[in-house]
């Protein structure tokens, strides 16, 4: 395990589910982790945009719809081992169940922050792995976006 990865574990950014993803990657499915993570990024950004626009509603906030989006985000974050993001989703969900508007705002801010951090770190991780692979003489396709 490289230093960045163990750092991320130590910080609770990632949990053992991420390791499970890595274990599922092999010669028959050499880009499995980056494929899954890229789908996750794409999906999560859409959900985060939805959540922000739902929160921007001046009048009646649709807490139920927020809850649905949150469940999706929570599920997929948990599935890739994004522990801190998952935990913030849990807190966010509690706020929606309490119709706590201010709490929802705070949770969304935290969620966006955690998500950005996760995305940056995972990109870094993939870069490190790519460099290693290149050094080892193996060619991996470059994953963009």
């Amino acid at each position, binding site marked *: 395990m490289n230093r960045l990865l163990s750092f991320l574990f130590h910080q609770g950014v990632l949990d053992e589910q991420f390791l*499970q993803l890595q274990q599922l990657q092999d010669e028959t499915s050499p880009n499995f982790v980056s494929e899954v993570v890229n789908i996750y990024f794409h999906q999560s950004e859409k959900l985060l945009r939805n959540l922000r626009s739902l929160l921007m509603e001046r009048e009646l906030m649709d807490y139920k719809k927020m809850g649905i989006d949150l469940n999706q985000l929570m599920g997929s974050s948990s599935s890739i081992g994004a522990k801190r993001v998952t935990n913030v989703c849990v807190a966010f969900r509690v706020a929606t169940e309490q119709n706590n508007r201010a709490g929802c705002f705070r949770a969304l801010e935290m969620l966006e922050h955690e998500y950005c951090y996760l995305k940056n770190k995972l990109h870094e991780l993939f870069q490190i792995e790519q460099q290693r692979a290149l050094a080892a003489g193996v060619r991996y396709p470059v994953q963009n976006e």
Partner: protein
Amino acid sequence: MGMAAESQFHVLAVDDSIIDRKLIERLLKTSSYQVTTVDSGSKALEFLGLCENDQNHHTSTNIPSVFPNNHQDVEVNLVITDYCMPGMTGYDLLKKIKESSSLRNIPVVIMSSENVPSRINRCLEEGAEEFFLKPVRLSDLSRLKPHMKKNKVKDPRNETEEKIENSEILLQQEAPKSQYSHSESESQSQLQAHSTIDQQQQPLQQNNNNNKRKSMEQQGLSSETDRTRQRYSGIATVV
């Protein structure tokens, strides 16, 4: 692949989340199962309808694009489904399968990200074989094997009811002409009645079961780990 002696168990995985579908597919393939994934309960039933198809309507059903042609053996040895899905939930799907005379012998496993004992009990009571907490791990999949074997091997100790249903199959055993394969279409394979599919499958599986069981054991099955651990540790963060 495609060799008669190595025909694999076929699992139908149902989940509305694309990430979870990718995950479960990879988990199942890594465990040497053939996999079909669908994103809803209704699509699952549609797909299962192909398996219990009788000779009367093998041309008119809407075939998913997974299959290159209409006339192919389709058999599902286990259904694994997410609980929370829009429209038909995993529980609804379970019920429908268990209520169907042609499908109810197919073992069903439920997955859920939430650890709700009443939900778990309800599913088990309705006939689910197992309940997995998400995210599902490789070690969880070792619990699938015994359920699939139960379905394939015509055990004389089975209840009378099953025996009667299966007697047709037991009497009609013949050497398989073509090799059963899920992923490659065999020109000879016809989309046949469920019982005919079984009759081809059954002799193939007998030899294979012991080998598979051995290899599964060698993989170091985890003991029946109780996966009732909380997904989200402790108290949620207060914002």
